[in-house]
C-alpha cells in the first residue's frame, strides 16, 4: 500500500467500533477500578453512532472528512471526559489531514501528532499523569521515528501505545477521577490509555 485513503479510514473506524463493542466490559471494569465505570459503555455508544453515520458520507470521502465525522459524532454522543478528548483528537487529526486523498507516512505522523496535541491542550495532562496521554505520547514519538512506510508507522504507534498503556499500571493519577484515589490508583491500568492502544492497534490491523 502506498498511502491510506478514505476507504482505509472507514475500515479503520469500523474496526475500532467492532473492537470497542467486543471489549466494552473490559474497558468498563478498568474504569470501575479507578474511575466511574462507564468508559466502555460510553465509547461503544459513540462508535455505534459513528457507524450509523458513515453510510451517509460520500463514497469517495477523503480521510480528513471521515475523521471529522467521527469527531463531531463522538463529541455529541460520548459524554464524560472521553467524548471531548477523543472528539478533539479526531478533529485535530482531520484538520491535519486536510483534503488530501491519501495519507503517506509523513502525513500520518502529522495527523497523529495533531491528535495528541489536541488531547494535551484540552485535558491539560502531561505524560506520567496516568491518562490517555501516556499512550498517545509514546505512540506519536515512535511513529515519528518509524520511517517512510505507513505500515511501519502504524505498527510502531500501536506497539508504543500498548506499552504506554501497560506502563500506566504502577502510576498514581494526577488528572481525572482516578486522581481522587491517590496511592490507591496504583496497580490499575488507565482505561483511557487502554482504549487509545485499542484504537491505534485497530489501525495497524486494518489492511
Amino acid at each position, binding site marked *: 500500500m502506498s498511502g491510506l485513503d478514505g476507504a482505509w479510514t472507514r475500515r479503520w473506524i469500523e474496526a475500532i467500533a467492532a473492537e470497542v463493542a467486543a471489549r466494552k466490559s473490559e474497558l*468498563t471494569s478498568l474504569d*470501575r477500578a479507578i*474511575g*466511574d*465505570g*462507564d468508559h466502555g*459503555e*460510553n465509547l461503544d*455508544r459513540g462508535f455505534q453512532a459513528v457507524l450509523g453515520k458513515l453510510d451517509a458520507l460520500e463514497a469517495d470521502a477523503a480521510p480528513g472528512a471521515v475523521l471529522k465525522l467521527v469527531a463531531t459524532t463522538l*463529541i*455529541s*454522543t*460520548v*459524554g*464524560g*471526559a*472521553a*467524548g*471531548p*478528548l477523543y472528539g478533539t483528537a479526531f478533529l485535530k487529526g482531520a484538520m491535519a489531514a486536510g483534503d488530501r486523498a491519501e495519507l503517506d507516512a509523513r502525513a500520518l505522523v502529522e495527523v497523529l501528532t495533531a491528535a495528541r496535541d489536541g488531547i494535551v491542550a*484540552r*485535558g491539560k495532562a502531561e505524560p506520567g499523569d496516568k491518562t490517555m496521554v501516556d499512550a498517545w505520547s509514546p505512540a506519536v514519538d515512535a511513529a515519528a521515528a518509524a520511517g517512510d512506510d505507513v505500515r511501519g508507522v502504524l505498527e510502531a504507534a500501536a506497539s508504543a501505545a500498548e506499552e504506554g498503556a501497560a506502563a500506566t499500571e504502577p502510576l*498514581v493519577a*494526577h*488528572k*481525572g*477521577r482516578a*486522581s*481522587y*484515589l*491517590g496511592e*490507591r490508583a496504583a496497580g490499575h491500568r488507565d482505561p483511557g490509555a487502554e482504549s487509545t492502544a485499542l484504537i491505534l492497534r485497530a489501525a495497524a490491523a486494518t489492511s
Partner: protein
Amino acid sequence: MKKLINDPAKTVDEGVAGFAAAHSDLVRVIVDPPFVIARADAPVPGKVGLVSGGGSGHEPLHAGFVGYGMLDAAVPGAMFTSPTPDPILEATKQVDAGAGVLHIVKNYTGDVLNFETAADLALAEGIEVQSVIVDDDVAVKDSLYTAGRRGVAGTLLVEKIAGAAAERGDSLDRVAEIARRVNSQVRSMGLALAPCTVPHAGEPSFELAEDEVEIGIGIHGEPGRERIALEPADRLVDRLIEPILEDMPLAKDDRVVLLVNGMGGTPQSELYIVFRRAAEVLAERGITLARSLVGSFVTSLEMQGASITLLKVDDELLDLYDAPVQTAALRWGR
C-alpha cells in the same frame, strides 16, 4: 442485584419521561438533543438564565431543582456520565432572555470539558455565558496533583442561592459573583456504608465488607479517601465534620446552613441521627445554626451513606436562601 427498571439501557430515558409527566406544571422536556429539562416559562424576560447538569443518578439533582427561584434548565447525561455539549447548548439557548446565562458545573473532568465546549458554542451564537465551578468536597486534597475538589452536595446551595439572585433581577456578573461566593463558603464531606450499582454495569462500583465504612466518598460511587471499621454514628459524624471545620475555620457566633444529605439508600431517620450530632458539634463551638436542611438531594443511586455540608452565611446569602422557591424537590415560600 435487583432494580426497579425495565431495561438497563433505558433507565435515564424512562426516568426523564416520568419526571416530565409528573411535573408538567413546572417543566417542559426536550428530547432531541437528549435531554433538556427547562422551566415551563423559560426564558423569563429580563432574567439571567441558570443552567446546570451532569451525569444522571444523583436525583433529584439537577432536574428536581428546575423552577421558580432556582434553575432555568437542567441537562441530565447518561448514568454518572457528563452530558455532551449539544444539549447543554440547547438548554443555554432555551433559557437565554438576553440577560446572559450562568452555567453551574460540578468539578469533574468530564463535566468541565463538556460545559466548556458548550459555552464556546453559545458564545459563537452571541449568548453571554459565565461558568461557576462547584468544588465543595473537602475529602479531596486540592492540589496540582489531583483534578481538584469535587462538586457534591454544596451544589444544591449554590443553585438555590444563585437562583434567588437571578430571580430578584441581578445581572449576570452579580449572579456569578454570588454563586462563587457561596462556593467559597461551602464545604462538604461524605461517607458510604454500602456501594451503589450502575444499572448497565451490573456490579457494585466498589466492594465494602459488612463492617467497613468508606470515608470521603464521592457521588459517583468512586471510592473515597480511607476505609475504616464501622463505628457508632456520632463518631462517624465527627469524622466528617472535623475536616470541614479544619478546612473552613468558623468563629463563635458565625452563622451556618447545615445540610445533611442522604446518598440514596439511607433512611431519613438515620439522617436525623446524623443531624443531631452535627448540630451538637456546632453548638459546642458556639456556631449559630441559621437554617437546616435534611434529606436526600444529591444522591448516588442507591448508595447507603450521607454527607454533611456547612455553608457560612451573611445576611444577604441568608435572605437569598429564604427567598421563595418552587421546584419538584425543593419548595417553600410560594
